[in-house]
């Protein structure tokens, strides 16, 4: 099980990096001479704030959406690791920890789907 988790983590970090680098190269080619200014908070473009929006951006070859897809892979990696632990504990017949892990996953889901962004 430890090797599966190790592989998941390595794959998650490497693919996130790869996707972000790819998006970064596209981004620099397209926008390199524009001006950068992040002294005022405007927030990331609306369509880059949700999974559907980022997916739509990917189809349109939007460089920023590709970078954001790398970010999504990065965020998903530890969450997948928690999900995987449910099976690991079930294999050990440790039902107390199956329950504890499900609770953790539920709390994360509330953060994801609870509309808490305000």
């Amino acid at each position, binding site marked *: 099980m430890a090797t599966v988790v190790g592989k998941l983590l390595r794959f998650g970090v490497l693919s996130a990096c790869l996707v972000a680098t790819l998006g970064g190269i596209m981004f620099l080619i397209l926008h390199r001479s524009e001006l950068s200014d992040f002294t005022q908070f405007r927030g990331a473009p609306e369509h880059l704030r949700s999974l559907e929006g980022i997916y739509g951006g990917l189809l349109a070859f939007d460089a920023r959406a590709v970078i954001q897809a790398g970010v999504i892979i990065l965020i998903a990696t530890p969450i997948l*690791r928690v999900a995987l632990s449910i099976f690991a504990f079930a294999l050990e017949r440790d039902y107390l920890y199956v329950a*504890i892990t499900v609770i953790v996953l539920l709390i994360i889901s509330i953060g994801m789907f609870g509309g808490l962004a305000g």
Partner: protein
Amino acid sequence: MSVLLFTSILFMGAIAAGLVGALTGLGGGVVLIPLLTLVFNVDIRYAIGCALISSIATSSGSAVAYIKEGITNIRIGMFLEIATTTGAIIGALIAVYMPTNIVAVIFGVVLLFSALMALRKKNEAADTSEKSTLARVLNLNGSYTSPAGPVEYKVHRVIGGYSLMTVAGVISGLLGIGSGALKVLAMDTVMRIPFKVSTTTSNFMIGVTAAASAVVYLQRGYIEPDLAMPVVIGVLIGAFAGSKILLKADVKKLRLLFSVVIGFLAIEMIYNGLMGSL
């Protein structure tokens, strides 16, 4: 500044942040926030978004090495995750109502505390006296292999540790950092878990805690791809190089130097926060 120049400088800065974060054991995200806000004049909300994903990246990246050694206690980590993820979501909710200069002051205080924690003496010895029934019921006690043979340890004061972990979670959610220092304090000092186990378990928890609030921040537009791209890649490279240096060199003096530098950055953050310029 043009996008190309800004991205290049930011990339170098992120490598430095990852390096210093790994050498001090504080994590790249912590160094990133003062770098982005004080040096690059970036709004602290963007800085928090960047720190958050950097924390996840370094946590996953270094966890690969820790799993091989087999000293992470997944049960302790998972049980305490209930506390930290709940805290993280509460923190992310509070963040909306918190003026940014107050966030800067809180960050400075946490950073100062973390720098001091990095310098203190570690709890190396395993405690073998059994004091907590809850630890037994929850099956938290464990063992790890050391050069001198297997080391058994018992976990103390579960409720105290759980409470402090909730606070660590709120701070993670509010500031976008892993708050590893607080997590280690809870496990090390309160629960009497040996240092080796508490550090690796804290690292496991940082990624999960940060992921819990990251989605809220993504929806809020704190995670800006223009900044995220150089920052994440740079921090990962820096952290990787830092972990290699740690294995080879005696970094005691370097760690002391960096901790002093981080202490100054922390005071600078507090000052700017109080003056309302962040």
